[in-house]
């Protein structure tokens, strides 16, 4: 596993994670997508999608017992799959950069640092479904879509 030590990137992630955490608690998040785009042409080349299926019947008072280990195992298996996906993903030859998209409820009020954007579809994509894990409240199923090699 590679972990970034870029301060700006860390700051960015801190902000994103903090916001996403509140949305997760509100059950107002549907998907979290990491998009990888070419800087020069703005073409989307990879699209890592994490569908979050939240159990909306859950209130503040409901309590469910799931062992921490079970959840962590689920996450670990997903990460392992992601790292292993290097084997089938096409090489990124041009300089690329990433963006994080959040699919939320239509009526959600968003802080001013956030703005609406498009779904960033890939032209002529190929999809691979990855593993999923659940906390019994949120079920996260991962998938990756990438541009087919010509």
């Amino acid at each position, binding site marked *: 596993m590679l972990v970034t030590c870029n301060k700006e*990137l860390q700051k*960015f992630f801190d*902000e*994103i994670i903090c*916001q996403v955490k509140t949305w997760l608690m509100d059950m107002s998040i*549907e*998907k979290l*997508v990491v*998009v990888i*785009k070419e*800087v*020069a042409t*703005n073409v989307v080349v990879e*699209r890592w*999608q994490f*569908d979050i299926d939240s159990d909306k019947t859950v209130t503040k008072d409901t309590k469910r017992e799931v062992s921490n280990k079970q959840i962590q195992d689920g996450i670990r298996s997903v990460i392992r799959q992601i790292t292993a996906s290097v084997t089938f993903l096409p090489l990124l030859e041009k300089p690329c*950069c*990433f*963006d*994080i*998209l*959040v*699919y*939320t*409820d*239509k009526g*959600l009020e*968003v802080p001013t*640092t*956030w*703005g*609406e*954007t*498009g*779904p*960033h*579809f*890939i032209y002529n*994509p190929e*999809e691979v*479904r990855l593993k999923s894990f659940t906390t019994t409240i949120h079920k996260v199923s991962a*998938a990756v*879509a990438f541009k087919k090699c010509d």
Partner: protein
Amino acid sequence: MDSFSDSIDSQLSGMKRKFDLTGSTRKDKPLRHNLLSDFDEADNTLDLSRHIERPAKKKPMTFSLSPTQTFTADSPSLSMQLNLKAGEIQCLKASITKLENRIALLQRNTEEMSIEHDKEIAEIKAVKDREVKKASDLKSKLQYVMECEKTARDEVHRLEKELQQQTIESNKKLFIGQKERMEANEKAQQAKAQWIDKEAELNEKIISQKHKINELQNKLEESLAESVLNKKSSGEILTYKRQIEELEESLLVEKKKVKDLEFRFEEHEDNIITTKALMADLELVPSLKSEVAKLRQDNEDLRMNEQSTLRLEEEIFGLKSKLGQIDSLREAVAKLEVENEDLKERLVRWEATDTSGSRRPQSPSSISRCNHELEITNASLLMSQGEMKSKLSICERKLEHGEAELHSLKSALATEKNTSSQLNDLVKRLKRKMLLLSKERDAYKNLLDSYESEVTVQFDAEKTSQIQRLEALVQEHKAMAIEAENEIESLSNQLAESRSHLEQAQYQLQNLENPNQQSSQQDNETITQLREQNAVLESELIKTQQERDVLDAKIEQRHLQGDYDPTKTKIIHFLQNPHALAQKEREEELEKLKEDNEKLKKRNQILEENGGIVEGLTMQVEENLLQLSPSKEIESLKSQLASAEKRNQRLKEVFSKTSKEFREVCYELTGYRFDIPCPNQYRLTSMYAERQKDHLLFQQTSQGEIQLLQTDFSMTFQDSMEKYLNKYKSLPLFLSHITMELFDRQTMSL
């Protein structure tokens, strides 16, 4: 102001001169106006090119005139020359193109220059306008300041006047105050005198009051003594009152006693009455005793009587039962008598009937005997009947047997008949055969005869006769064959008919046998149809399921591609995300590179123009870039102008809108429409005006006063004008009066 405009003019003229100077001395300043010098050089080069071109043009002519003459003499030198010329031509062409390029460049430069000049002129004009504006502003300010000063002076005058007035007033007030003080002193003295007088009066009054008090004290003492007396008398009265109360109480007790006594008396009287009544009752006692004795005796008698009556009743009951028994017996006796009579009658009849018989039974015994005999005969008859019955049954059996035999015989007969008919047919056939044979025999006999009379008889005749006979035979055979064929035909027809009958009969039989089969057939048909439909539907179901699966797969794929429902969800991202930042950086870099590119291009151009040796190259490049910028500047200015115009337009729109609203509100509130037909003139048209033309016209003078101008409409309000404008000097009053008047007129007319 004039001086200012003069100065601007002088400035302008100075600038022009400068410009002219720069125009005239451009050769002296190659650094700044090197382009123009270039242009001169270009002219020179153009002249040169012309010089060069002339021989170039002339030479080919000479060549064209003598190609044949010189070609043979010295071709190598000629070809050399030709090559040289061609080279020259190429060179010249290149120079021409270069020069053309330069001309284009120069033209561009001149254009740019002109644009610059225009711009400068425009700027200068703008500066001039600005200055003019400033001057006018300053003028207006000066005027304003003057006015202010004037007003200030006026105010100072006024204030001084006010001060003087105030001082006078204060002096007056002081005087009045002193006067008042004097008066007050006088008043105080008077008050003192009055005070002393009043004191004396009061002292007198006090003395008189003291007298009065003494008197009143005396009176009080007297009254106290009286009150003591009164107290005493009141104590007596109290004792009397108590006595009276006691007496009253005793009286009440006495009255109660009296009442009790009266009650007793009444009771006593009642007792007396009762005792009297009791005494009367006591007198009646002895007689009552005797009566009691009598009654006891009567009672005993009555008891006795009762017992006797009970006994009698019992007896009566017994007698009644006996009587019932006797009645029943009587009835039975009567019945028996009737029966007896009946029997007697029967006996008589018996006797009468028996008289007719030969054997006269004299008694029932004889009858019984007869009866016995008859019974015996009956038994014998029964015996004979049984025998007869058995015989009858035997006969019946025999008959049945016979009938069966008859049947068998009949069938045998039918078979016999059949055989006989067959035999008959056979006989017929045999007869026919016999006939044929006989005929043949005859024919053979004839033949034999003919053989016998062979010698005598002619053969031809014989032959012909034989032939005839044979032909006749043939004819008969043919006829028989036809008959047989007819028979066969008829028989075959019958057979076909019988077969058809049989088939019909069979069909009917089948129909009769299974009428239910038809309905079952229908059911079967419907079942098969339904099965087919079922099959079709199943196939459709499978197809639709497949389609659904396909669609599901597509949806899944779309989902994986990141599709979403835009009515329910939205996609957001952090604005300062790495990609956006990277892109921004890239754009900036691109911009920078473009700039650098531009700079380098310029540098290159300058180097090319000056043959690679230039001093202060970067300076020149920057200058050039600045010179190039006018087009950009123009563009930016144009965009600014456009935006300013747009803003102006918008402001105009807003202003027109608000002014319209304002006018409408004014119309609604004041009842007058305000129009401005020409500057400083205002036309007011009332809401209640009878005609469109009825309006008032006002003019604002330069002093700010508003004057009413004469119109046809205003002439109709002479009186009110007199009253409100001349007397009260109030336009609003006048206007409202007109409104009221017009309104009254309208309502009147309504």
